[in-house]
């Protein structure tokens, strides 16, 4: 038996097929993964993401701490509630985890990190904090997290959780959060659709889940979460990047703040060197031209340039064909055609820009 979220019993009642995900017993789907995917693109759905690691970091010098700890620069966070996506790097520039950090107030930042990396993340953050000094780190095991996503997600969330949310939550721009009573409501997500991620007391989670369901928000499993994020071109930690890859090799250069040049964040030296010498590998999008499904770890051959590997491959329910993210040599260009070994048969893939899908529409 793995760890269970406060919603585990409700998942069983709703017919979830439960699988192990990073040590957690989580719902894979509640019947059909593809139908769940379409519900989120066309209407809305809710995900139990309570397995994610919510951590509050407090102290007078908390901003300076995160400027050291993260590859992105929390100096960008000027308005309370503003969120920033970043990688946390080891000293070699490899990615320990990717996370979202929220600026709550001048002595309080909130971080949401991955579930499967919980132990190593906490070891790293705690060690860095000890060295830095003057910080209190609290893992929020007393909270749950529900993501409500889709074009109709916000409207149904107001219906379910109360009109009092409409003014404060409705006013949020993307990547901001606000606290309303006991609810922490953020305009973040992992689907490429509009919606909220809501952090709430664990005790309130079952009731809130039921209210959302009664307002017409269906439960969505982790299976659809993966195809939604892949279509949206969002990286998955452990697949698209890990401790052996830098963010620059993982399509995450946009999340690395090399300016100001005097900010000495952990892992910076490798990134400066890569930037100066040229980043050897890149993450690109790929579309399979024929039938079949691209899978993680399949080898990609790019004629005259070299080889690469698929880091996230699946079937795109929206595009009704297979798409993938792949790490390939830097010389590979958008529009190139490469070959993938699909179960012993060579198949042609086209290199494309990603995201593949945003707000319900194809970007191809």
């Amino acid at each position: 038996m793995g760890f269970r979220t406060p919603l585990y019993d409700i998942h069983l009642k709703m017919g979830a097929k439960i699988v192990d995900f990073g040590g957690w017993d989580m719902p894979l789907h509640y019947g059909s993964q593809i139908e769940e995917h379409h519900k989120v693109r066309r209407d809305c759905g809710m995900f139990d993401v309570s397995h994610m690691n919510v951590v509050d970091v407090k102290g007078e010098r908390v901003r300076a701490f995160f400027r050291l700890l993260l590859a992105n620069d929390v100096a960008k966070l000027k308005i309370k509630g503003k969120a920033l996506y970043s990688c946390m790097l080891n000293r070699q520039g490899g990615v320990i985890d990717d996370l979202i950090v929220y600026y709550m107030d001048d002595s309080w930042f909130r971080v949401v990190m991955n579930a499967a990396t919980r132990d190593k993340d906490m070891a790293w953050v705690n060690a860095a904090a000890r060295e830095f000094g003057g910080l209190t780190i609290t893992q929020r095991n007393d909270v749950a997290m529900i993501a409500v996503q889709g074009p109709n997600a916000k409207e149904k969330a107001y219906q379910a959780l109360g009109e009092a949310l409409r003014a404060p939550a409705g006013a949020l721009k993307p990547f901001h959060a606000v606290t309303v009573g006991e609810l922490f409501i953020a305009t973040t997500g992992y689907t490429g659709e509009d919606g909220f991620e809501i952090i709430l007391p664990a005790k309130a989670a079952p009731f809130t889940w039921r209210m959302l369901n009664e307002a017409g928000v269906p439960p969505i499993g982790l299976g659809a979460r993966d195809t939604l994020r892949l279509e949206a071109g969002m990286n998955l930690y452990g697949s698209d990047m890990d401790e052996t890859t830098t963010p620059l090799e993982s399509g995450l250069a946009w999340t690395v703040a090399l300016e100001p040049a005097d900010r000495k964040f952990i892992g910076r030296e490798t990134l400066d060197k890569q930037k100066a010498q040229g980043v050897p590998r890149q993450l690109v999008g790929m579309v399979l031209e024929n039938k079949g499904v691209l899978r993680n770890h399949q080898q990609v051959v790019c004629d005259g340039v070299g080889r690469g590997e698929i880091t996230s491959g699946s079937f795109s329910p929206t595009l009704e064909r297979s798409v993938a993210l792949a790490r390939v040599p830097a010389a590979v260009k958008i529009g190139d055609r490469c070959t993938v070994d699909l179960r012993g048969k060579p198949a042609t893939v086209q290199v494309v820009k990603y995201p593949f899908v945003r707000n319900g529409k194809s970007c191809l």
Partner: protein
Amino acid sequence: MSNIPKDLKYTKSHEWLKLEADGSVRVGITHHAQDLMGDMVFVELPQAGAKVGAGKECGVVESVKAASDVYAPVSGEIVETNSVLSDAPETVNKDCYGAGWMFRMKPANKTELDGLLDAKAYEALVAAEKH
């Protein structure tokens, strides 16, 4: 809680087989197999007229999660394939023993049928796999 009809024969590789009145056999994959794989996105079937050997690969089912070969339960000739599946592979999930059948074949040697599992033996196989 797998659905295993009593009147069918089964293979260890999770195909089902039904003897038709004309002596041909209809083949598909079991409820347990489609449940393990999840939503089907592609089904690749053999050509009608192809001769296949017992236990040989003669098709592929591919779901969001994984790809898996489909094996011929007995030796013989493929006489018909289910054309519905190329446009509606999800039929395999919705009705694996009915509209989701995969192909029909003429067995080369009827005695090969005796070597297949009955519902009870297949149920035991599925139960063993779950532990």
